[in-house]
């Protein structure tokens, strides 16, 4: 059996607004059932890329192929896309359910049963008759997610989907995204919440100034192991620093909230071996914990290296 083709294939894609390139030289592919995260500072080109994939904007150069349709000079949107724009708005005097019914009527794919089901799935009451103008930002975001999911899209585009969601909503979103991916939907997610992207995505792309600068696979992490060590007193801190100097292992101050005697220590061999070495070097250890080098660190390094 042949494997399905990519849901998204971009080759050398660039998008220019006037003289400013919002995206340049972007190559990427996204397979059905895969969740791809897209992270970058403000103005990095995240929303532009989503608009290109949805057919709302046209590329200035390169090849854009979405769900088997090559998007050329003529503007068009491929069939089978679910889109959650940043801060989606609805008809304010209608209920959430009525809004979805009118939207769904355009494509006639989702019926009342699907709409009720998807509303319940995103945590909204299908029987709620309140007008959407009375919805909180988080409820509107859930409704935005519902409209994107109700027609069982083959490609789900999420632009800052966690905006306004409470912690429970963020956890639910994670489950919904993984569920959609398990059903074969390709998911493309642009977010500023690095931890969320890290937890839900199979791959994460880091973007700066419209170009992809790094791609991180979840399975590849952590690239480097570090432990956080809290020592008992100042003499222990001195002993730790002497050990680090001898071992050539650079110490980094930990988060100030951890206290003045906490340090991040790279693990040369293994954690038990490190503990033995430190105890042998006369370091009295109060606490020790493994720290994963997070995507956040990766991202901050990337931004600060610019």
């Amino acid at each position, binding site marked *: 059996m042949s494997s399905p083709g990519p849901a998204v294939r971009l080759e050398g894609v660039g998008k220019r607004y006037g003289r400013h390139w919002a995206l340049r030289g972007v190559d990427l592919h996204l397979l059905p059932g895969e969740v791809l995260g897209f992270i970058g500072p403000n103005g990095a080109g995240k929303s532009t890329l989503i*608009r290109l994939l*949805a*057919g*709302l*904007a*046209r590329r200035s150069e390169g090849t854009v192929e979405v769900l088997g349709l090559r998007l050329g*000079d*003529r*503007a*068009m*949107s491929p*069939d089978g*896309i679910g*889109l959650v*724009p*940043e*801060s*989606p*708005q*609805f*008809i*304010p*005097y*209608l209920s959430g359910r009525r809004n979805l019914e*009118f*939207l769904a*009527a*355009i*494509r*006639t794919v989702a019926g009342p049963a699907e709409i009720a089901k998807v509303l319940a799935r995103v945590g909204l009451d299908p029987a709620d008759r309140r007008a959407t103008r009375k919805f909180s930002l988080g409820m509107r975001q859930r409704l935005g997610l519902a*409209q994107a999911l109700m*027609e069982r899209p083959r490609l789900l585009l999420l632009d800052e989907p966690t905006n306004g969601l409470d912690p429970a909503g963020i956890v639910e979103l994670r489950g919904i995204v993984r569920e959609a991916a398990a059903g074969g939907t390709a998911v493309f997610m642009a977010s500023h919440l690095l931890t969320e992207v890290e937890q839900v995505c199979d791959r994460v792309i880091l973007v700066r100034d419209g170009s992809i600068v790094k791609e991180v696979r979840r399975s590849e992490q952590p690239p480097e192991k570090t432990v956080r060590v809290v020592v008992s007193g100042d003499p222990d801190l001195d002993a730790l620093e002497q050990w680090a100097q001898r071992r050539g292992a650079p110490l980094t101050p930990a988060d100030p909230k951890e206290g003045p005697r906490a340090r991040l220590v790279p693990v040369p061999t293994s954690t038990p071996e490190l503990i033995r070495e430190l105890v042998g070097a006369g370091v009295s250890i109060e606490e020790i914990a493994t720290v994963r080098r997070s995507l956040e660190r990766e991202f901050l390094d990337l931004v600060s290296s610019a």
Partner: protein
Amino acid sequence: MGEFVRIVRYDALCGLASWRWLAVPAVFALACWNEVSSLLAQKGRAPVNAWDGPLSMLQDQPLVIFVLGLGFLVVAGDRYSQDRSRGTVALTIIRTRSRTAWWLGRVASAGVLALAFSALGLGSALLTSAIRLPLELGPSVAAQVPSDMKGALYPSFDGLPMPVFFGFVVLYTALALWPLGALILAASVLRPAPYVPIGIAMLWVLLEAVALPSLALRGGGSADPFYHLFFAIHFQTPSGADPASWPWSALVISAALGLAGAVGALTLRRSDV
């Protein structure tokens, strides 16, 4: 066809979701109150009734241009820019098979909004007029008989009951407003910046206020969609000038709608939304 109708319905529902609509009854009521006051102040004028308020309002050129024309353009003219920034355009366009169908649906929904505007505005004016003047089935004496050598307050069809004639005027006004809204929509697709539609609408209306009287005098205004907002152009004037023909009005309105449809459809084929 079904998809087209559903786009029109969704766009019209979106178009009604603006707080600006709340100003429509208030502005028309105020304008009609002034009109009725002016009718009542005219000494020697034959008796008037409630229909005379809104219908004689529609003979007043500045009122028609600013309250009716500019009012509609302000309420519904910048829908494309607003819906684009709210993400509503994205939500509907990705669900539509072709951009041309999507755009024509939008142009058509401008017609639905024009009807809503005309009915809401003139309906409010009629209610205001009915507070001060008697509501009768037939036309008032002032509407039938020339008085003070000025002719009737407004022209109408002989023998037609006033509610029917008033309904006809509401429909005609909506039909004449439709191309104005559609043309401003098309302009906002050509230049989708937030204040462009309202800016163009204001400029257009100001130019009309200056140019329309002289154009109309020379007969040159008949190709201008604004000129067709005046239902009275289709009737013999007291001065004996020829009335505009109904087919000509239909042609001007259709041509303006066709232009708006073509410009928008061609622009959207090769532009970002």
